[in-house]
């Protein structure tokens, strides 16, 4: 039988990419899901599957790590929203020809590995380091070090994920047509009303993409709590890493990963249901 006739041209042309997705995306994911059902501390899928790993997780204190990860991510996203909106507004409307320069300033650090940047902050914040050492030398004051505290972890996360909130948000703000703003002012709206009724709703697609992107990335954050926080907090991604490395308990690590995907996936779907990105984007 002729292959070309049995499958349509669309499917036929999509085959390479489908195959690529299957091998590169679906297969590892399915392997992780498969591993989560095999007995703890074993390495072969060729054995009877059970829910043992999931039962163990529900009987443990793993929920603490989930809560820390979700909590830290939520706080990070809120702080980012407050910091990024004014900058995004500036980039889209105020900075003019300097906008490119400001964008570059936010982009350039991305070329340096996250770990290197975080270790840089360690040297900045550590006792007798750049900040505290200078304060001591110049003013003779010796405040307590901020390193290895919960606050510094949030600082690190806000710092690392800022571009992921800022750029979609800038896009969102720049999508608001000047005419709608002008029309609102002409019809007697106050500055606050223009912001609330026109600018915010119209820039929502960008804001939502920024929220989702930075939230999903921040839930999986691990380096900030490790490097800046000195493991004062164990986020879920660190729990997963321990299971896959020191504990050599791949099935437990896989089960934790599956649960994390489920939790984050559900939250993202809920948000997407509330804000239909396609519809908002399609309106333009």
């Amino acid at each position, binding site marked *: 039988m002729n292959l070309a006739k049995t499958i349509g041209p669309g499917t036929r042309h999509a085959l390479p990419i489908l195959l690529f997705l299957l091998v590169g995306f679906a297969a590892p994911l399915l*392997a992780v899901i498969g591993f989560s059902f095999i007995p703890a501390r074993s390495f072969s899928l060729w054995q009877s599957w059970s829910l043992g790993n999931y039962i163990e997780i529900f009987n443990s204190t793993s929920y603490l790590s989930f809560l820390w990860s979700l909590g830290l991510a939520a706080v990070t996203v809120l702080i980012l929203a407050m910091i990024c909106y004014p900058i995004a507004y500036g980039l889209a409307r105020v900075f003019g020809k300097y906008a490119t320069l400001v964008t570059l300033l936010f982009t350039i650090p991305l070329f340096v590995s996250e770990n290197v940047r975080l270790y840089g902050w360690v040297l900045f914040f550590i006792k007798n380091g750049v900040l505290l050492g200078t304060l001591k030398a110049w003013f003779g004051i010796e405040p307590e070090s901020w390193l290895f505290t919960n606050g510094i972890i949030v600082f690190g996360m806000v710092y690392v994920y800022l571009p992921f909130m800022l750029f979609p948000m800038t896009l969102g703000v720049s999508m608001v047509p000047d005419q709608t703003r002008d029309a609102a002012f002409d019809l007697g709206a106050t500055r606050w009303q223009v912001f609330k009724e026109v600018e915010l709703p119209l820039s929502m697609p960008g804001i939502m993409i920024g929220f989702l992107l930075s939230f999903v990335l921040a839930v999986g954050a691990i380096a900030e709590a490790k490097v800046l926080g*000195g493991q004062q907090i164990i986020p879920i991604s660190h729990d997963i890493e321990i299971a896959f490395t020191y504990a050599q308990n791949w099935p437990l690590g896989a089960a934790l990963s599956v649960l994390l995907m489920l939790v984050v996936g559900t939250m993202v779907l809920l948000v997407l249901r509330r804000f239909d990105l396609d519809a908002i984007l399609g309106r333009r």
Partner: protein
Amino acid sequence: MNQFKQSRRNFMQNSALMAAAFAAGGVAGLRPAFADRSKELNILCWEGYNSAQVLDPFRTSTGATVKAESLTNDPTMINRLRAGETNVWDLINVNNPWARKIMFPEKLIMPLDRAKMEPYFTKMGADFKPPYKWAMDDSGEQLLGMAQRYGPYSFVVNTDKVSRATAEDQGWDLWNDPANDKKYGVLESDDWNVFNICCIAGFDPFKEHTPEEIAKFGETAKKVFKGAKMVGDIATMNQALVSGEIDFHMTGGTYSASPARADGALNIRAVTPKKGPLAGGKGGISWIEITSVVNNPDISPLAVQFLEYVQDPKVAHTVAFAEGTFNPVAQMGNPDCFSLFTKEELDAIQYDSLEEEMARSVEYDIVPDYDKLLDIMTAAKRDASGG
């Protein structure tokens, strides 16, 4: 329906196989079985053996492609072999007990030619004279690997804050003293942390533990992590010690303190307690690396050649001071090798007290209920989350 289930399951199994093949391929390349391996060598090791300083001269002289992957914990390396990577690696470099107690009985490594390799032990320090226990199998007949780097490994103090004498006398009770809350760090090295928490709890780690001891272990782990200023890697510990963030940290020895000492911070010092709950009332734990030939069905002929290469006094000195951490080597027993070490290098590895500290330490061993203790410790670390 049944058929669908079956095929889905096969698909998953095949996917896992493919993933494993890709993972293995990343290290050794997807090579056909029993290809010519005379110019290829793969080493699974602790950091140092994977450095260019050690490998490049060997690469040049043999014209071989040498790949080395460094990991920083023994159980992971052993499990890689167990998971089927015996056909990837030629040499494995792990701490002392694994060769004779686990890898040889499980047929993961193969014996060496005793007549050829044992003479190298006669040139090593007095403690390594043949037949050297950790290099031999249980019967004492088979030579299972070569010794090189070793050292005491208990904890590290900043002697400006805690004197060496105080640390040696107080020993593991430093961690039981509430006054030391938030004054110490914990090096992220979970297998050694299990040993140390047993010592702090007051019992020997290297034995099967009673339910009471296990309960005590859990309480002690919680206390230790709750009181820790931070948990981190070697660089973080040394930086925190030098800057004054912490006064001491556990899981440490010449291995972890030597980079700071080599940098001139001689107040950072590895300490071995004078007494403790270990066998014979000893207070410290030491490690000795044994490098063995993997039971690879298609073993590279360069494996044994490499083991001989690192015995050379010059190369042994390079191994001692390869990038990463700096350590004493057994080959220092040979005056030709010892004379290559400068005074600064000897200071960095605390050669002045090496012998007495090794004498005060028991040798690293396998914890029979390690998995259980590790799970308890991981949970304790999580419970202490948030400070």
